[in-house]
């Protein structure tokens, strides 16, 4: 039995469906991200787990027990809000100790655990500071400590890093990951930032319009997007039009390669720009004409036209010659680098 199981979870606002048929199993200690554009239902899902939004359909099982009927203040989950939602009239120590106080833990233990939590998030010596007098990053640490000090069964993070500047966000990302690993709390992160989701999570749940598009490890979802939506949402990608022959082979012009599951007729393949390579002389491939070339330091970004549609490709700045604008080159890619997109999912 998984630690947390969402079964057919659904929520509607009037006739608008916010979340529909969400199934997800999360193992103990796992870090799972709900990723998607705004309005995809990821925040609603988190709020249903937290208990702030009533569940319309489905079940939420934590260690086998259904949470749906449990009021939010009895669920014992740790939550970090986008705005941090710290209590401005309480000091850092009072903020962190609040949850312990509500649990009727005596003063001495409250103090030790508060100090431990502050040390964990790197806030030693800030006990008597008021949140207003702290930077965004520090406030975020207080919010994290406040959520973790109650030893929650689940840690829910609602876009916790979106209010920080880029540099701080990266720092906090690695720190968050390290803290989560060290205490082993099962964590669910809601984010619209693909880099954040890929950097932090064990698995990503990609959502769109209230439905799950794909669930998997970051590299698996990135490498094998299940739909055009996933392919385009997660990183840059090329969607190549080809023709299937019905026996498991797909051809793009003269270039033919085996793709498992490809049917007969038009098919679409998603290939990442960094996986398209220049074909060696005489090797099979398809021709493209380079239309622009942008130098980006570690690599070149090229755009090109082809019979399979416009595409982008990346060349590492490894000292090899780079095709010039207007030049026609032959490209190829390995069958394992292509993901077959579901038919009718054209975009």
């Amino acid at each position, binding site marked *: 039995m998984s630690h947390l199981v969402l079964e057919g979870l659904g929520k509607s606002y009037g006739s608008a469906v916010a979340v529909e048929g969400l199934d997800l199993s999360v193992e103990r200690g796992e870090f799972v991200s709900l990723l998607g554009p705004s309005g995809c239902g990821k925040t609603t899902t988190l709020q249903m787990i937290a208990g702030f939004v009533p569940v319309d359909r489905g079940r939420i099982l934590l260690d086998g027990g259904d949470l749906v009927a449990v009021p939010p203040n009895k669920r014992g989950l*740790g939550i970090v809000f986008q705005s941090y939602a710290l209590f401005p009239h309480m000091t850092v120590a009072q903020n962190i100790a609040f949850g312990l106080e509500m649990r009727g833990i005596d003063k001495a233990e409250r103090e030790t655990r508060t100090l431990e939590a502050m040390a964990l998030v790197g806030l030693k010596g800030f006990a008597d500071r008021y949140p207003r007098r702290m930077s965004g990053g520090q406030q975020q640490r207080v919010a994290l400590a406040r959520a973790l000090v109650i030893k929650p069964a689940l840690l829910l993070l609602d876009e916790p890093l979106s209010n920080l500047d880029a540099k701080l966000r990266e720092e906090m990302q690695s720190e968050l990951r390290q803290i989560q690993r060290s205490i082993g709390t099962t964590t669910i992160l809601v984010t619209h930032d693909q880099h954040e989701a890929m950097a932090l999570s064990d698995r990503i749940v990609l959502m769109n319009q209230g439905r799950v598009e794909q669930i998997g490890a970051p590299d698996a979802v990135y490498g094998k997007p299940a739909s055009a939506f996933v392919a385009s949402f997660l990183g840059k990608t090329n969607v190549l039009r080809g023709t299937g022959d019905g026996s498991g082979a797909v051809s793009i012009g003269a270039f033919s390669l085996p793709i498992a599951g490809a049917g007969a007729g038009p098919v679409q393949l998603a290939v990442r720009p960094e996986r398209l390579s220049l074909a060696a002389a005489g090797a099979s491939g398809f021709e493209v004409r380079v239309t622009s070339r942008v130098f980006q330091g570690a690599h070149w970004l090229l755009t090109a036209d082809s019979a399979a549609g416009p595409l982008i490709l990346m060349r590492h700045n490894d000292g090899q010659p780079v095709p010039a604008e207007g030049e026609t080159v032959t490209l190829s890619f390995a069958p394992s680098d292509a993901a077959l997109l579901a038919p009718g999912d054209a975009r």
Partner: protein
Amino acid sequence: MNRALSQRATPYWLTGPALLVFLGLVVIPLAMTVLLSFYDWGQYKGIVPEFTLKNFHEIFTDSYFFEIFLRTFRIAVLVTLFCMLIGVPEAYILNRMSPAWRGICLLAIIGPLLVSVVARTLGWALLLGSTGLVNQGLMAAGLIRAPLEFMFTETGVVVALIHVLIPFMILAVWASLQRLDPQIENAALSLGAGRLTIWRRVILPQIVPGMLSGGIIVFALAASAFASPAIIGGRRLKVASTLAYDEFLNTLNWPLGAAVAVLLLAALVAITVGSNRLIERRYAQVFE
């Protein structure tokens, strides 16, 4: 040099007109009232411009005045307390309403302020009189035998003043509620706090500034209210402002009336500034 000087003078030129209006309409009349309160007065000699503490001595020694000031204070405190008791939950509910309903309810709350004081208070008199709607209704329902006395009682004055002044409390508290982080209740909830605890530990401390400013406005307006005590309290149930009015216009003892007005003003300033200091120190962190 010259230019720097004229630049420095600009703010004075710009604030000058408003300053003059303030000086002419507030400071000078007040100063004259204060001056007047130290003048002598006699039944046959009228106002005599010579310095005396007679008026203040009279007010402080005569229990008649003491009773009136005590009543004024009692009414103001009761009105402030009830405005807080009713207004704070009302503001909280208002804050959680959908925008459409909030608009309607806001109009109902501010309504009393849109009606003339006299018309509104006379309406109260009709409603609360011994043959008024409230008493007739209660008697018809068999709840009371004899009509309840609202008119010419402190209770009546307090009820009418609460109705008039509660919008100030609601609006002040609502303003501070709007500054609350919308997720703060959820945060407290997730940490295991019940509804009551959230109110007491999280929301209330943060809206103290709003309750304080609302309280000061309500207290000051209740203590210096004239129309409601005059119409509902009548001539016998005097408060400080109706007392000053009667001294000026009925007894024609202007210096004594001025002394009453000055004492009322001084007491109001002392009480509001004092309570402000006290509460600001107690809740220093929410006042930043």
